[in-house]
């Protein structure tokens, strides 16, 4: 039916042809694609090295056509630091979940950002530990039920969700820190721009960049993929405000 046509949207080259292991409707897949598109558009694939986290996205290395190393849980920014300092001519990015980055990896991400490592961090916040079966994360919303907070997150015992982007934006070292989301197509369009900018800043040897992306986990939230995007709008977005929090090109540095 469709022939002689111009393709106006297709699978980016940086993405391999593997079907992912993600659950239906899990927005990890969208974020993967945006990263891959950014690598393609900036022509970075052949000198890019990704660092896989431990979390649902642990198999990310199977889905990209670029080199990858796989980090211990939470330590991806340290691996990226080590690699980038040894090969400053390469492009290095991490892809991390909220358990990985905001819980066990807190020390590593704060210090990588503070040293101003010239790496790009894609931080996928789905307010839960996806891979291990839905335990409470530091980013879990107040009252949210998880397998380790069966009566809902109790802020008296577990505190409030951590806003990583805000926390990192307090650091004086110049960096690019932004939060975006995947809940509607227009959010995705905006997210893509931000992710691409984060990679561009690395290409230009400018600064550390971190993009927090609000993401769904229909499986562990126990709702349909469509309801999950609505859940972001209703519950996460009011607390995790979207926007660019720190931008070296805006002279705030």
């Amino acid at each position, binding site marked *: 039916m469709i022939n002689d046509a111009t393709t106006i949207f297709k699978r980016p080259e940086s993405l391999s042809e593997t079907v992912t292991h993600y659950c239906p409707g899990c927005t990890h897949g969208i974020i993967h694609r945006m990263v891959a598109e950014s690598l393609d558009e900036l022509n970075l694939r052949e000198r*890019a090295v990704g660092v896989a986290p431990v979390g649902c996205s642990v198999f990310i290395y199977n889905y990209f056509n670029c*080199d*990858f190393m796989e*980090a211990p849980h939470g*330590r991806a920014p*340290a691996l990226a630091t*080590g690699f980038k300092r040894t*090969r400053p001519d390469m492009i290095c990015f991490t892809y991390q979940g909220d358990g990985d980055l905001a819980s066990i990896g807190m020390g*590593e991400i704060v210090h990588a950002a503070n040293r101003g490592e010239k790496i790009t961090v894609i931080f996928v916040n789905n307010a839960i530990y996806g891979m291990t079966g839905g335990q409470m994360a530091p980013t879990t919303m107040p009252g949210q039920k998880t397998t380790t907070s069966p009566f809902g997150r109790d802020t008296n015992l577990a505190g409030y969700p951590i806003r990583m982007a805000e926390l990192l934006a307090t650091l004086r070292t110049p960096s690019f820190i932004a939060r975006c989301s995947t809940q509607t197509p227009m959010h995705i369009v905006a997210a893509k721009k931000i992710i691409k900018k984060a990679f561009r800043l690395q290409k230009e040897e400018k600064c550390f960049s971190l993009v927090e992306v609000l993401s769904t986990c229909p499986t562990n939230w126990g709702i349909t993929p469509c309801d999950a995007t609505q859940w972001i709008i209703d519950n996460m977005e009011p607390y995790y405000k979207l926007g660019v929090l720190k931008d070296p090109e805006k002279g705030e540095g």
Partner: protein
Amino acid sequence: MAKKLMKGNEAIGEAAVCAGALNYFAYPITPQSEVAEYLCWRLPEVGGAFVQAESEVAVGNMLFGAACSGKRVFTTSSSPGISLMQEAISYMAGAHLPVVLINIMRGGPGLGGILPAQSDYFQATKGGGHGDYRTLVLAPASVQEAVDLTILAFDLADKYRNPVMIIGDAMIGQMMESVEFPEKYREQNDPAESDWALNGAKGRESRILKSLYLDPEKLDENSFMLANKYDMMKKDEIRYELYNISEKNRLLVVSYGTMSRVIQTAIDEIGEEEGISVGLMRPITLYPFPGQQLYDEAVKPNIEKVLSIEMSVGQMVEDVERFVRGKKPVEFSGRTGGIVPTPDDVKGYIRKSLGIEK
């Protein structure tokens, strides 16, 4: 090159430079902080880079990332710091990465003290991290040997694509001795030439360095692949030194590191002064352990006993027992926590072991 008088810690730093290992990651800890204090100005001179990490957990993982480049990378630390690297070491071994870790041991457990000890033998040789892996372990007895073994460590790490540890006690780090470095300093590995490093998926399939194998057959295969490498090391890399071996020896002492030098003095003295003839086997590779060689010495007819002397409450002695295979009684003597047994102490241990009253 001319002889230099250098502190062990600084000499180790220079040895790494000499081996073309110009990427160094570390966190301060007594008694090895001088390595970083030396390399923080020395590395920039030769185009290298030192990153002071936020913790030893981060150090271990920076090394991991850096090793993926195919260049030579390393760290130095001391006992508690090495404990914090155990997860990363297990990962690096699992991913077949060459990396050099130098532990200038202090007394433990816990915060312990800052004085020399040898109580991390188990951690180093049996693998303090989880899973089936080993590190090749070298133990220098002098500043010159610390230099030589540091250079060797990088070669072995590259050869086997496996972490190599050097364990020296605080004495190795703190004392000054004269050292010589090779004339020729080695170039850094060229990452572009590596057939396994992550150097960009340009004109080739993408490469993955990882330790995750959810398929148990694959994970089993990876573990036995590692085991195979260790078997090769057992064949090719065993190093040790014998001292005062003679048919008159009644006792065989086993000891490594600077402790062995104290024992050499004690052996000289007790031989001269009391006519007691004692031999020493000093393992240089602690893993793989010179087990057969030890056995061969131990079974010699005049040897009454084998005595492991360590600055610990007794760790290597378990390997000594294992390799002596019941052929001779195995005993242990030692002190720990920063106490270095003196030659007099050692003579006491020897007499006690042989049942000799002074």
